[in-house]
């Protein structure tokens, strides 16, 4: 609803021919064209669609930026030679977009603002360096991308075209209308640099292949990716680096793009290893890799690199491929998810549940070694007082015990009754004063007991809170939190 009436925000060619305009109210439009088809404006969907098209335009250049709500900027510096020239690139892009069902126009210019102006307000398709002034002069002011108020203000003073704006002295304009009009003018004419804000960061190293005949089978994709791994490895070698984050982009002919990223703990550039990691990532994607009508462009890019250290090869002479532990961690993390492969890192905390953290093995590849060391101070006659396994959530048990701090005599866990034959404890562990009394925060002061039943099963149970300090009618609860072995 704009100005209390439902208005048209976008029209197609047929509607334009029948006399409708953007901004016309819906009732007026219906009056002129009775059989008008109307759809509600869905900005979120439009934005998503524009993002998808931007993703697809990645095939031409990695620097793609949004231009308002219905346009894209593509920075094709240095990419044009791959497509036999800039004009061919633009034609190819527009042709494919039209095939996909969009109405599209394009323009090429040395600056982004000039391209924006030409594309929307002029019939000219391309502009060389030095011709901007001549081409842009007859265009109206809104072509510069200024907002409506600014344009209205300038028009009231009689400035209607870019040429007129350019010919006026700058200081009075700035005092009256602010900096924006002149900044935009300078950007259009190339006197000021305005870098694009690309949607995705450009990859550091890239290798790609285009196919006139789209690929459909998985085996073909693997063959191509293997070739790309080799050429990526060569580029990385030239830079003296290894890749840390790699993404394989598969561009379908119908515009959809499939992104298969994978991360590597130690920088890697061996093509065989990159290939195995890609295979695992591809298999993990599984059925969601739908080739559609085929892929006509496959690109392998490294988004993050690091210094590459030569590893020692093994001389064991074994037939089977002997990889090292970090490569194993990479393969397992890609196949099962990085949370599935863990190492235990000690923490200095008296609270037992916080005495260790389970880190994903990929994440701790960069941690210094002394943080990962465990210490052991056992003497012979001391019993083990920490369980070997711990439940993530302590399990509630029903207990018969002596008050105030006797160990459990009998308890029921998971619906089975256990008679305690031997018990040791209590080990009283206070929670930090800042933790709450809920179990998830750490609970109250706890008494931990080591219990053994008649068959020799050993448990670690605690009472959450003390009988003396408990409120009436709410005796402290007992929990089982770990198993001894």
């Amino acid at each position: 609803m704009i100005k209390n009436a439902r208005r048209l925000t976008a029209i197609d060619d047929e509607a334009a021919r029948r006399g409708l305009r953007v901004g016309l109210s819906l009732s007026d439009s219906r009056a002129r064209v009775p059989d008008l088809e109307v759809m509600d404006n869905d900005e979120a969907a439009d934005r998503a669609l524009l993002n998808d098209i931007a993703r697809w335009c990645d095939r031409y250049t990695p620097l793609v930026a949004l231009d308002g709500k219905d346009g894209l900027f593509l920075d094709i510096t240095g990419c044009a030679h791959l497509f036999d020239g800039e004009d061919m690139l633009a034609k190819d892009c527009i042709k494919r977009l039209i095939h996909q069902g969009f109405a599209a126009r394009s323009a090429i210019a040395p600056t982004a603002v000039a391209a924006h102006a030409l594309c929307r307000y002029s019939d000219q398709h391309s502009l060389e360096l030095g011709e901007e002034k001549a081409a842009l002069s007859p265009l109206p002011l809104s072509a510069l991308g200024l907002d409506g108020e600014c344009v209205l203000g300038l028009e009231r003073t009689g400035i209607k075209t870019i040429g007129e704006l350019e010919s006026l002295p700058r200081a009075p304009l700035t005092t009256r209308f602010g900096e924006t009009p002149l900044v935009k003018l300078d950007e259009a004419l190339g006197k000021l640099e305005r870098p694009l804000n690309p949607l995705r960061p450009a990859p550091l190293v890239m290798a790609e292949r285009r196919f006139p005949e789209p690929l459909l089978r998985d085996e073909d994709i693997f063959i191509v990716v293997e070739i790309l791994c080799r050429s990526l490895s060569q580029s990385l070698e030239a830079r003296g680096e290894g890749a840390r984050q790699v993404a394989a982009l598969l561009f379908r002919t119908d515009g959809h793009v499939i992104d298969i990223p994978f991360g590597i703990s130690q920088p890697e550039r061996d093509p065989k290893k990159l290939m195995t990691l890609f295979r695992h990532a591809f298999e993990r994607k599984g059925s969601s890799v739908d080739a559609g009508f085929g892929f006509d462009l496959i690109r392998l890019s490294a988004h993050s690199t690091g210094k590459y250290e030569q590893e020692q090869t093994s001389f064991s002479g074994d037939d089977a491929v002997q990889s090292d532990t970090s490569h194993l961690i990479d393969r397992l993390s890609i196949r099962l998810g990085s949370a599935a492969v863990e190492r235990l890192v000690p923490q200095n905390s008296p609270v037992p549940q916080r005495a260790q953290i389970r880190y994903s093995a990929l994440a701790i590849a960069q941690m210094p070694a002394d943080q990962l060391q465990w210490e052991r101070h056992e003497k012979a006659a001391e019993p083990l007082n920490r369980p070997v396994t711990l439940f993530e959530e302590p399990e509630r048990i029903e207990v018969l015990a002596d008050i105030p701090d006797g160990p459990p005599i009998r308890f029921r866990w998971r619906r089975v009754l256990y008679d305690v034959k031997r018990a040791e404890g209590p080990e009283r562990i206070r929670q930090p004063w800042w933790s709450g009394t809920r179990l998830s925060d750490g609970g109250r002061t706890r008494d931990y007991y080591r219990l053994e039943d008649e068959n020799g099963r050993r448990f670690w149970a605690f009472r959450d809170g003390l009988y003396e300090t408990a409120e009436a009618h709410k005796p402290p609860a007992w929990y089982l939190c770990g198993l001894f072995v």
Partner: protein
Amino acid sequence: MKPHAAEKRAFAVNCETAKSLERQTLLESLQRDIAMIEGRLSEKVRLDLPTHLKGEYPSHSYPRPREEGAQSVVPIVSAINPQANLDFEGEANKILPFTFGSHKLDQIFLDGSHQFCGLFEAFGKESREAGTLSGFAHGLLAAFLTRADGDILWVQDQGFTREAGVLYGPGLAQFGLNPARLLIVSVSRAQDALWVMEEGLATQGIIAVCGAFSAHLKADLTATRRLSLRAHRQKKPALLLRLGASCPPTAARARAHISPASSAVLGGYEQGVGRPVYRVCFDKLKGHPPTDFHLEWRHEDIRFTPAATHTRALASTPFNGSRSEAEMGAVLAFGSRAKTTGKFRYAS
């Protein structure tokens, strides 16, 4: 007479004695280190050691600090040949071959050249005995780790995590297994489980693989055959723990049934929860009849020992008066009951 020359000669003589002394202290410290790794060091000598040598793991990541006077030589046990017999010049202390601490276990798990390799299985009858089952495996791996350099891949599925919980570092450290040398993988799909174990065996830095699974795992003869072949080829041990499963035939070299047993007295405190004790029954051994024995874990030596037969006075009789669970796996036609050790007698 030139005092200068006399001094020089005296100095030279002193240097020689100093060097031989140095060599001797070096030898002694080396022997002491090796004896400690073996677990042969007597309590008294151990207590005399400086603190930084007492309780540390023979860590492979950094060299341990030495006492003053000795050169810093770290006895790195190579993973390529962990059973190397190093001979000192004329000393009686030879490095003994690797042992788990119990002769019966050594007979079963170690092959002719005292290598621990191949696929082994351990079953726990009830799913609530997950702690006992994994404890036995932890014991085997901890003993193995004292002799070899590398990491252990521990694979656990969701069923096992539900029964037993997640591994707890401080407890493992007390038990004797260095948590920094564990790489823990949780699998959610059954088909990934054995694949992860195979990948671990093929990795250079992993010296043992252990999989702890609940009954859902499909590990039959064909599935485990590859695992067994790879374990043999790589000369690494692979342990397969199955909780609450029926026992299908597999390609494992030996199969154990682990059940919990009353703990052994520690420190003279009869009422206390003492050393962990396991009851181990082997029922698939080439050329051996099924055996059944009790093992005790000594965490300070990082070794098993045969559990001593002793009575433990109990406060009251068991809950419903039943004495023990059914014998597991052992066919009693051979009268093997008479051969078992470590039977506990309940005070009435």
